[in-house]
């Protein structure tokens, strides 16, 4: 199935501003702060990975401690890998339709069960040409904003082949955006190096 190529997760909860996905493989989520996309019938939703969680499949059953090294555990309790799942939470930063890319929220959230894949370096470059995504991420209230903003800038820089000029410009944008909160701005900038 060509659609499965590069699939790293499947959407299980979606709203206008965020979506949650189950990773295709346990313990193999996209990196925190990396750029991902969902291809839906109506277009492409772009987002930044804002959190990852691995837990028991069944919320009524909590994982317990076995007290053995991982390799031994998998030999002794091979069913465990079938009972846990990795989920990641994504903040929507833009969308694309009919060949154009927008740095604002999509008219509709992605559908449930749509596949999530990683953005290509070209897509990341296009998404981060405008530093609007920094503002979107900075507006979050329930995430460690300084960690998420700095991780997203680092991931964007990596996708751009270690672009120092981009990091400098992003740092300036951060300083401007958080001019009323010097400590927060500095904690983000410190995390960029």
């Amino acid at each position, binding site marked *: 199935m060509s659609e499965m190529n590069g699939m790293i997760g499947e959407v299980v909860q979606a709203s206008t501003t965020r979506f949650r996905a189950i990773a295709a493989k346990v313990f193999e989520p996209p990196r925190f702060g990396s750029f991902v996309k969902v291809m839906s019938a109506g277009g492409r939703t772009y987002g930044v990975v804002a959190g990852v969680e691995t837990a028991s499949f069944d919320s009524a059953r909590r994982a317990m401690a076995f007290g053995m090294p991982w390799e031994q555990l*998998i030999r*002794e309790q*091979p069913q*465990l890998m079938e*009972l846990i799942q990795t989920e990641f939470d994504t903040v929507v930063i833009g969308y694309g339709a009919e060949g154009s890319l927008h740095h604002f929220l999509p008219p509709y959230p992605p559908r449930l069960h749509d596949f999530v894949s990683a953005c290509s370096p070209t897509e990341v470059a296009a998404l981060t040409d405008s530093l609007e995504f920094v503002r979107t991420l900075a507006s979050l209230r329930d995430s460690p904003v300084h960690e998420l903003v700095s991780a997203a800038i680092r991931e964007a820089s990596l996708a751009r082949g270690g672009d120092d000029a981009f990091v400098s410009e992003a740092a300036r944008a951060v300083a401007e955006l958080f001019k009323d909160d010097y400590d927060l701005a500095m904690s983000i900038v410190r995390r960029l190096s």
Partner: protein
Amino acid sequence: MTLRLDQVYEQVAAMSAALATSRDELAARLERAITEWGSAWADSDRVNGKVGAAKTSWLLARPLEPPGRYPDPALAPERWRVLATDGSQIEVSRHEIASCFLVNVGEVVLDYGAEPGARLASTPSLYFEPEHLYPIYGDEERSADGAIVGAVRDTQEFHRLAELARAADRPAVALVDGTLILWRDETNPRGLANLAPDDVKRRRLDAMLELFEAGEQTGIPVVGYVSSPGGSDVLNSLKVMICPEHPVDCDRCPFTPPDVRPTAITTKPCDAVLRISDATLFRHTLGAGDRSPLFWSGAPVLDAYGRHRVAFCYLDAGDEIARLEVPAYVASSPELMHLAHWAALDQARRGKGYPVALAEAHEQAIVRWADREAFFRLVASRFVREGHRVVLSAKQLRKRGALV
């Protein structure tokens, strides 16, 4: 307010006091049972003769293996597989919109040793045709009640386990949750085998025998794992050994006055081991990981099993004494019995007291209340879409929104 705990509290205190007084008596009877197990059971010929000739109303265990120690075989296969199935059901409800029942069978394939892995799955089947809702059960037409749905579920579990056994590509053990003895069909064992092939009772028996056949052909022991067993077949046989009569005939018990039920008095010789269960006896006589010798079960229903009679033993699985039941092809093969003993023990160890495969099969099969509600919502929405009449009973509507 539902259960008034304040009112039940004093009754709990009285129950606790009663237990304390009977504890000493129980300890003395247990002592006697342990002594008889060590002495009376040692002479297998005498036990076979006396138990074989006894006429009792209880089930009697007959010795299959000599007394002695049967320790953990401590096998170390390069790779092996454990198979298990379990089921649950949504029964027919008069209060719901559609007459139907659902059986959900969970299955587990666990591979150990080289190339470890696991496959967990469940398969639901919906039954709604008239022949399912009004089947023949024990040669009479009945509407599908809990017993019938249970029998259909058992049939599916055995059938799927047989398929998994046939597909196994390495040494394997097939675990059944609970007994291999179809106690519920016990009333008429000879009649059971003569029922029509589409009789629900007969189908369950046939599915179990098919499972035994599959296990025998593939060299895979089928093991019924009974947790917290309540049986006292072995103790019943010890009672026969304690009784001075020969042959023992409880209907003519000389220690019971005429016109008195034998159970009404507790001074008969056999009452020396009264109300001790097999599990209690073996809790005090087995070492960690040991199993007891095998016994033949005397359950009358086994007459319908043909050459696949069921034997059993008790296993000290650590946290509890479990009862293992095996068909004759396993009981008569030391190699398969070693595998059954070791795998059951290994599973209980990995599962911290209860076999992992059975626990996971149960988790795969279970239909929770929320699942049941979701199922009936699914039925309702489909019915509405297709223009069928949807009527819930008044009781069901009330349950979904009680008056306050």
